């Protein structure tokens, strides 16, 4: 029978087939661990006298809590420090490889795994982190889970799972100049909504995705969870293989050829059907900015913030009004007229080398608007190293951007990088929830190019708006 990509990967990982009453038991090829969602899971193992079944399929790093400045100093926040120490202790006790703060391979978990070549097509990958969907860019089935499930995977290397629905998101045609992967996914979420993907695995199809680099595909798949989806996937192709070849954990020699044969079979069969389908015309897309407090509340950069009167029903009116009030907007203003206090370039959505290059291209030879605070936070030690080798750090520093150490940083403000109440931020991250980047902070999600242009202009801008 004709199958979709996600069904193929799913079927190849069933350890014990379920039925109407019982879920399938899926084998997990790779388990990524970070300091925030794992301590209670390791504690659970100890209480039950269980071990880690496959430490060799498990890897850990520190990302959420790590400071991005002064990392040679002791961590000021004792609670953060304790959480990182606990991770190190747990990894030591259970024999799990850890990339700790200061290690060149340390970084945001969803940046380091692809970079190490651990993320490969057709694998099942999990992490106690919702943005695990990122790894779907390689044609892996990758999804986030809670701490009880982290414990489950540590103990068994499997997870009981009900088969989700399938959903196809097609974007065909050529993206207009200046429209990036981030704009595509913001437009998709704006259309299908924050619940549009609930209970489904999205497969992104069509020439617009084929034309994206791996970094761009990761940006797209990363935000699948923002549409509520279980996972997001893109079929692997020559772009994928070229990215993987030669990475530390990628197969080599004869194994590479064998792997390639398998990887090439990972496409949706002709005639396979999806439970849901949406289609977009790439040529009609534009740069997008979120205006509200969930990632479905987006507007075009050349558009206006909606007004509660635009709502279709009372519920929507209410949520627009609530979001506007939190965001300190009145509704109806031109997006380009809104001034920002801060610009954050980073996060597992947009902190890879290509993202930094895009931002640096805009920053080169220009100056950040006086009064605008900026942070550029590379996704990993390796990204930082490469950026510095290319001289991107100099471009940023000369333009007045603050160049930092790798980590999650202001994406969720668990470390000292936070917004103050009322502070308005253009952010390349993935969540504009109330208080996400600091209590009372106002987040607008944008692409790296728009973030850099906004830092220079002081109001939301595209690179071509700059003098």
């Amino acid at each position: 029978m004709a199958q979709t990509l996600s069904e193929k990967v799913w079927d190849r990982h069933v350890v014990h087939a379920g039925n109407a009453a019982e879920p399938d038991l899926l084998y997990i090829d790779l388990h990524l661990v970070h300091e925030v969602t794992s301590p209670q899971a390791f504690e659970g193992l100890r209480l039950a006298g269980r071990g880690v079944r496959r430490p060799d399929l498990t890897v850990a790093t520190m990302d959420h809590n790590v400071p991005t400045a002064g990392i040679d100093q002791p961590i000021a926040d004792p609670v953060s420090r304790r959480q990182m120490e606990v991770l190190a202790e747990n990894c030591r006790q259970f024999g799990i490889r850890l990339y700790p703060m200061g290690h060149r391979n340390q970084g945001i978990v969803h940046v380091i795994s692809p970079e190490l070549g651990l993320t490969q097509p057709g694998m099942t990958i999990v992490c106690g982190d919702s943005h695990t969907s990122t790894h779907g860019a390689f044609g892996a089935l990758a999804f986030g889970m809670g701490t009880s499930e982290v414990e489950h995977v540590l103990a068994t290397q499997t997870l009981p799972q009900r088969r989700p629905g399938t959903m196809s998101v097609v974007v065909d045609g050529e993206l207009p100049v200046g429209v990036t992967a981030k704009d595509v996914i913001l437009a998709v979420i704006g259309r299908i909504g924050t619940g549009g993907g609930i209970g489904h695995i999205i497969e992104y199809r069509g020439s617009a995705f084929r034309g994206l680099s791996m970094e761009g595909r990761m940006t797209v798949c990363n935000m699948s969870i923002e549409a509520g989806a279980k996972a997001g996937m893109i079929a692997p192709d020559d772009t994928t293989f070229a990215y993987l070849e030669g990475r530390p954990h990628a197969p080599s020699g004869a194994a590479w050829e064998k792997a390639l044969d398998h990887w090439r079979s990972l496409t949706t069969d002709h005639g396979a059907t999806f439970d849901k389908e949406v289609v977009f015309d790439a040529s009609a897309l534009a740069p997008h900015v979120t205006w509200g407090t969930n990632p479905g509340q987006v507007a075009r950069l050349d558009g206006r913030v909606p007004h509660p009167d635009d709502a279709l029903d009372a519920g929507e009116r209410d949520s627009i009004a609530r979001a506007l009030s939190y965001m300190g907007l009145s509704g109806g203003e031109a997006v380009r007229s809104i001034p920002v206090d801060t610009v954050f370039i980073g996060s597992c959505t947009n902190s890879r080398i290509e993202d930094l290059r895009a931002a640096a291209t805009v920053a080169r030879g220009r100056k950040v608007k006086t009064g605008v605070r900026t942070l550029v936070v590379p996704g990993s030690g390796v990204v930082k190293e490469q950026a510095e080798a290319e001289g991107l750090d100099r471009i940023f520093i000369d333009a007045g951007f603050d160049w930092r150490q790798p980590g999650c940083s202001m994406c969720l403000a668990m470390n000292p990088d936070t917004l103050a109440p009322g502070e308005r931020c253009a952010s390349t991250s993935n969540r504009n929830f109330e208080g996400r980047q600091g209590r009372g902070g106002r987040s607008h999600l944008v692409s790296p190019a728009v973030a850099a242009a906004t830092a220079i202009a002081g109001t939301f801008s595209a690179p071509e708006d700059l003098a």
Partner: protein
Amino acid sequence: MEPIHIVSGKVVPLDRSDVDTDQIIPSGWLKRVERTGFGAGLFSQWREEPGFVLNQPEHARATILLTGARFGVGSSREHAVWALLDYGFRAVIAPSFGDIFRNNSTKAGLVPVELGVEEAAELMSAIQADPDLEVVIDVERLTVEAPKIGFTAKFPIDPFTQHRLLEGLDDIGLSLAHADAIMAYEATRADWLPVT
């Protein structure tokens, strides 16, 4: 996990949609390495507003949270479930849930009750009119009832999860019962697959 058959009691009506897990438990609380003590962090930003529904004395000691669509979307943090449980909630009623939140709930012993949009709206109005209205959730019959007003509705939970909730079963133990199948599967894994 303790077996759960019936959840009954007063209901807090949180009439908002898209309540994400960052709102349920803000990230500052995630630094704890224990599973307990998260109740104080539940909706901690919203609780700073005196008018917030959880601050109203008539809603004290409720065991059920009634809320809008897409409850628990966003971050995978199970801390959101622990915070709701620690505060005293045993069930959440909503028209829809974030997938990961829903999963986490049933692992930790919080019952996710999905009602139709209209049923949820009807119950919302009834609770807003009478904060003392008693609601009974029956995990065995998969029903939500408010006897005083004659409200009754069904909700879906798959048979496996229902069985686990009713028996208070440890998921890990159930999977380990398939140890032979896991070993057999491992023997068939391709040799190029990466190790860390």
